[in-house]
């Protein structure tokens, strides 16, 4: 017990790990607000393919991002076994659609390995580092870039202003 407390106050972080297909990922637990089952989303017009739509989260409108599609993998066809991880990114709440949530893990920040240089820029954008754990490899996801980037938003705003004009 003492040991855990020691590590918590030290350089360790707690992460929630989840699965997309055969791959395992994790995010900082402090960014996670809640985990809930899949509910049908209302699709948004002119949205990127990885935005599944919006759902009602106790009165708030929550956009759902298909994390698989966001990272360039196959688009998920969600069913009730899929899971939405509700996260807080900056001042916005975003739901991440994943296959399943696995575990809560505590790791020393020193053990996080750098993401190796890969050809795929998309992966590099989202994967902040790698963790080796019991023979598994878990990718640490950076949430900052999950929603469409600023340029995309500006482009969207321009479209909107053209429409409004």
């Amino acid at each position: 017990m003492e040991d855990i407390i020691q590590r918590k106050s030290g350089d360790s972080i707690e992460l929630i790990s989840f699965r997309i297909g055969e791959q395992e990922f994790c995010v900082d637990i402090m960014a996670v607000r809640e985990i809930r089952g899949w509910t049908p989303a209302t699709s948004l017009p002119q949205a990127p393919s990885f935005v599944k739509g919006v759902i009602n989260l106790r009165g708030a409108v929550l956009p759902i991002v298909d994390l698989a599609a966001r990272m360039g993998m196959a688009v998920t066809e969600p069913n009730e076994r899929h899971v939405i991880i509700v996260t807080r990114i900056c001042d916005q709440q975003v739901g991440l659609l994943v296959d399943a949530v696995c575990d809560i893990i505590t790791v020393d920040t020193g053990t996080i390995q750098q993401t190796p240089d890969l050809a795929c820029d998309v992966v590099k954008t989202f994967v902040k580092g790698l963790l080796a754990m019991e023979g598994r490899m878990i990718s640490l996801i950076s949430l900052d870039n999950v929603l469409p980037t600023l340029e995309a938003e500006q482009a969207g705003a321009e479209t909107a202003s053209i429409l409004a004009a």
Partner: protein
Amino acid sequence: MDPLAAIKVTFFQECEEQLAELEGGLLAMEGGDHDPEIVNAVFRAVHSIKGGAGAFSLEELVRFSHVFETALDLIRSGDIPADQETLKLLLRSADVLADHVRAARDGGSVDEGRSSAMAEALEALASGMGGGGEADTGDGFSDFVFNPVAIDLSDTAAAPDTSIEDLLARVTGEVEAADADEGAEGDVTWHIRFYPQVGLYQKANESGLLLRELARLGRIDVRLDVSGLPNLQNMNPEDAYLGWSVELTGPAIEEAAVRDVFEWVDGDCYLDIVRADTAPAPTLAQTLAQTPATSIDAVGEVDVMALIRAAQAAEVPGAAMVPPSSGSAPAGAPARTEPAKAKEAALDAKAQAAAREASPQTIRVDLERVDRLIDLVGELVINQAMLTQRVAECGLQRASSVAMGLDDLEQLTREIQDSVMAIRAQPVKSVFQRFPRLVREIAAMTGKEVRLIMEGEGTEVDKTVIERLSDPLTHMIRNAIDHGLETPEEREAAGKPREGVVKLAALHRSGRIVIEISDDGRGINRPRVKQIAVDKGLISPETNLSDDEIDNLIFMAGFSTAATVSDISGRGVGMDVVRRSIQSLGGRINISSRPGQGSTFTLSLPLTLAVLDGMVVTVAGQTLVAPLTAIIESLQPKAADVRNLGPNAQVIAIRDTHVPLIDIGRSLGYRTVTPPPTEGVALLVEGEGGSRAALMVDAIQGQRQVVIKSLEANYRPVPGIAAATILGDGRVALILDIDAVMVPKPHEGLGAAPASTGGGYDLSAAPTSLAKVG
């Protein structure tokens, strides 16, 4: 937030209220209302600001409000007549005072020249009131307090007493100057012993003013008690050492009247008020004077209260020589009960004042709490709708007790929702009240004579709407005076009164708030407007436009009729910005103008931004909500009425007019192939500019009031979608942005401009379609 900062916030909130009361009162006086209560209220407002400002050491604010207060005081006493000229000056002073308050709050600076000019004008007003002794006193005191006399402290050992004596001589001399003649026999005489404590001065009160106030009640004989004054070396310049004993004589002076004078300083001074015929001559001052002066010298710092207590202790044995007067209050006048009484009297006076104003009780609530409540009630409404739907799905009969109970619940939730919304509703007065000042300033700048008439200030609308109304209204009023009204000379030449009228009116009309800004000026110069539009390439010279359409050209982007960019309007912000900000509130703006008779702008806005009456429709399997306000009618298109126009555009004939037929599903990108129009329902909608279109949907589900939820909060704006809502089944439905879907997307490249029908003029389409023609 530390407590002091919190108090400061409250102080500034109250300042805003006081300023509003001040301006309201002055305007009422200008309008010919001479109720002394209004004058008192105006005086109180300035006095309260000064008091609070003193507590927070806001020097500039105290200085200006003091001068202002002095002038108002003379008006209150009737020494200065409250004529129109004076009131104009006072109104402008109120503006400067508001500037000072804002500068103190936001850390900005005040136009120093304007402020000092105004202060001088007020002082001139105060001193030029006809040479009464009182005015001298007042001015003398303001000099004394706010222009400190430099004392060379390095020289204290040499002659410390003379400089103090000099100072005191000024004070006593001036106070005594107010003491006009000797008391007549038979009058009531009050012995007042007044020993201010340091707190009194810290709150920017002033003994001199209080004494002057006493002088108003009757003849006064003021004696300054300097016995508390320590050696200059030991003197704390911020402490209070002086006391006064006053003999007030006059016919039928009530004790309450005397106490009223000290209402504001209650608790910050030692005060003893004794009737001469009930209390004998030995005054506290005298007792004080006899108390060992050596102790004062020794201690150096003087605690007046301690001295007074000592003096009282000395007095007690001598109480026996006070003849007990029959029936009246205990003559010994113990200091312990007196302040309590004074407090009671003060409370009484306050209660009376409150009763006079008969204002409803209010509380201050953090807006976030109200918003949270509104959110929760919104969810309650959704939940209730979900429950109703579930019960209906269970196949329960409408008359069953469960269903009936749900009906009651629905009614209740609606009422709760309405009441909660009413909390946020505020009278438009809070934004209207800024305009008298604005009008005065612009009138002064342009050299025009303007009268502002305001109607329906009590009309209530949601706070968010009010907040966002301020800028567009300001701009439109600026325009009305700068462009709309003529100069007095031009008006006379045109046979109109020199003074132009700008009218601002608010009223409720069919669930919306309508605000009209009208002027009786020259109206819109249509040939010139059209010429400018042609010059700027906004329209082609051949374009044939109706008068209405020309008037509406001023809303186009990049349009400004002023030949020169003036300081008032034409700051690079045109009517197009006004129109856009009104539209972003879900409102519309219209103009009607008659040459030589003036123009009227009409704004129509929703009462709240939180709920919306909508038509729930189905498009390509999606549930959407169309704002009911935009829908004129719904119809089932007949094959014969639908005609193709160009490669992929369609129009529909509705009673002799042809309007574009737009498939929502394709417009939003839900589908690429448009189903035959005969299989769906067409909604005839009208956009902001009055243009019409028929929107094709697959089916209509019904009409419902929906709670508006922001998409931007967690996502970003979506083209064609105004907002989202949550329906009875708990799912999110999107609310259509009618104007956005009506405008053809650029890549679709519709060959024809949207048909301009029904006398309307499609402003939203104008910049693109007309530019193409030009």
